[in-house]
């Protein structure tokens, strides 16, 4: 363990599990190194949505930590996730961000790969290598992401060949995921992402979307003031239920009294035909979440760094309310820097007029220019800057909201919430603690050593 005592990892995770966060976790090179190897090396990471590579031969290039991956749809429509490093001498094979290609030719020595990753050709195979006697070309391909899973069209990968089975790992979070990316049998359409870099630690955004309903009334007072979005008023926010289930958690808003599934969705601006589709795709228990007593999912995080947001601002001068969904990734770049990837997401078969209004709602509220996001990021950059100093090494931040000093919840779990998992009404940091307990589980466990792989050497001993 690299970190020096008394800030060793056992102390750190011990504090975190008590709801006390050593402030330097938000900007520390050694902690970041543990996160890189132990956490991102083993977790399920979101890469792209199928709609971003809708046509055969489409591709996008995405990262998990420092690793670049080529996410392709091959000519037969199959999806592949491959490490974007040429197996000859390591050049980045594809340097564009997205496009359409049947083959990828490495710029260095022109090895060529099919879009399913197979090595199709290398110049002078016979002259330079003596053919198969020197380099076994047969069956060689770009390195595959060790584990890949697709859910609601969302493509996830893990660098860990022994990653837990995705669906098992996702568990009860799947119930909530559908509210964001399961709105229609026709699937979702992802647009973007907008990408920008902020001098903030990646954990802060993830935790915030997981359950920080407490910041909304103050941080986002300006958007209430200009009547862009009326919900974040303090009295409304504290009626919401915070839930966590499986590897994620989120916030909700309480719908007006007397709402049912249809009127609740209509209240946040869904047109009838979209409500019909959601009625068809969501299960009775999922519909019951929106039904009386009536909660509407708002922000959420799936561990470690994928977040969702669902809000319903006013999108024109006539007072039209339109919901939008954004999916975002807090992609770490370093201990004090994060690249935000922010997508707009909408049901693929939504009416055009709705898509346009929902896109507008997104641009006004979230993303690089969003009026909510502007104020969020200001906070997160500031925390990260403060966390760098000496004083922060001896400061334990309080992440215990909703617990007494003895560790008992100040209110009972909320009964009658439609969804699975643990639910509390009102403000609390239950979800952030849950997030940090998962964080602690991973950073405290050394990653197992892996067997290196060689290419062109024929069959490798197992």
């Amino acid at each position, binding site marked *: 363990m690299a970190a020096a005592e008394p800030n060793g990892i056992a102390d750190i995770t011990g504090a975190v599990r008590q709801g006390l966060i050593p402030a330097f976790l938000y900007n520390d090179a050694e902690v970041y190194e543990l996160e890189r190897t132990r956490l991102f090396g083993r977790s399920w990471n979101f890469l792209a949505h199928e709609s971003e590579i809708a046509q055969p031969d489409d591709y996008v290039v995405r990262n998990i930590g420092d690793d670049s991956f080529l996410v392709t749809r091959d000519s037969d429509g199959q999806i592949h996730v491959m490490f974007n490093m040429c197996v000859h001498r390591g050049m980045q094979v594809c340097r564009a961000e997205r496009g*359409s290609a049947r083959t990828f030719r490495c710029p260095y020595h022109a090895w060529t790969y099919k879009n399913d990753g197979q090595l199709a050709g290398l110049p002078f195979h016979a002259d330079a290598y003596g053919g198969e006697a020197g380099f076994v070309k047969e069956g060689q391909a770009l390195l595959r992401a060790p584990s890949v899973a697709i859910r609601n069209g969302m493509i996830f990968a893990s660098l860990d060949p022994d990653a837990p089975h995705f669906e098992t790992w996702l568990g009860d979070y799947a119930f909530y995921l559908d509210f964001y990316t399961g709105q229609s049998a026709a699937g979702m359409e992802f647009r973007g992402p907008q990408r*920008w870099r902020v001098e903030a630690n990646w954990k802060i955004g993830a935790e915030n979307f997981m359950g920080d309903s407490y910041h909304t009334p103050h941080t986002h007072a300006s958007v209430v003031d*200009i009547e862009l979005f009326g919900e974040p008023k303090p009295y409304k926010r504290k009626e919401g239920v915070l839930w966590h289930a499986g590897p994620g958690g989120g916030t909700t808003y309480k719908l007006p009294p007397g709402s049912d599934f249809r009127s609740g969705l209509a209240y946040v601006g869904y047109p009838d035909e979209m409500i019909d589709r959601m009625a068809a795709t969501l299960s009775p228990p999922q519909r019951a979440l929106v039904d009386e007593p009536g909660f509407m999912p708002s922000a959420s995080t799936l561990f470690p760094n994928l977040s969702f947001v669902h809000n319903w601002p006013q999108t024109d001068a006539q007072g039209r309310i339109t919901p939008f969904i954004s999916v975002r990734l807090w992609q770490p770049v370093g201990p004090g820097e994060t690249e935000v990837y922010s997508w707009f997401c909408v049901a693929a078969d939504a009416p055009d007029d709705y898509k346009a209004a929902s896109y507008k709602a997104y641009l006004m509220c979230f993303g690089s220019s969003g009026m909510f996001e502007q104020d969020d*990021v200001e906070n997160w950059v500031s925390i990260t*800057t403060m966390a760098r100093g000496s004083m922060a090494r001896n400061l334990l931040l309080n992440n215990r909201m909703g617990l007494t000093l003895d560790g008992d919840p100040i209110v009972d779990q909320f009964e009658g919430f439609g969804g699975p998992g643990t639910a509390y009404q009102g403000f609390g940091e239950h979800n952030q603690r849950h997030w940090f307990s998962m964080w602690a589980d991973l950073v405290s466990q050394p990653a197992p050593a892996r067997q290196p792989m060689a290419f062109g050497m024929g069959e490798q001993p197992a």
Partner: protein
Amino acid sequence: MSSGQSPAPLPYTDERHQMAAQFLTEEAHLLDTSDFEAWLGLMDRRIRYRMPVRVTAVKAADEVDVQTMHHFDEDWYSLRKRVQRFQTDYAWTEDPQSRIRHHVSNVRTFEGSDDELIVESAVLLYRSRGDRTAPSLLSAGRTDVLIPTEEGLRLRQRDIEIDESVLRTQNLAIFL
């Protein structure tokens, strides 16, 4: 560039070019002095204000074909909301304010249809915040449609070509 323009820019001696260049300078002054209300006054009510996300594409592909997203896609309503937000007491991200400067250059003016002017310019936005983080720069090209009115030129359309695929500024609580 938009279609419908003449192939060559107006000469610098042309009064329309001078008016357009002055418009952009005065507009930058309003933004640099946070006079957003006056800035909004320069917009035609039918304003389209757009900034697509730039995508790194291979040379053979047309980048526009792979663009699916904007940083800005604004009309009068949303620009006005953005301005109103800065005028509240709670727009924390700009309190304390950024120190900003719009450097506008490379102005080329073309005759458009009717009396419109198509104006290309380059803008470099310098932004520094507080005393702990490094300043950020945004470089962009702009293609504007200016229309003459009795009160002077008004901005009818702005298409911003930002020169980065990944922005290196914490947010776009600014206008370009």
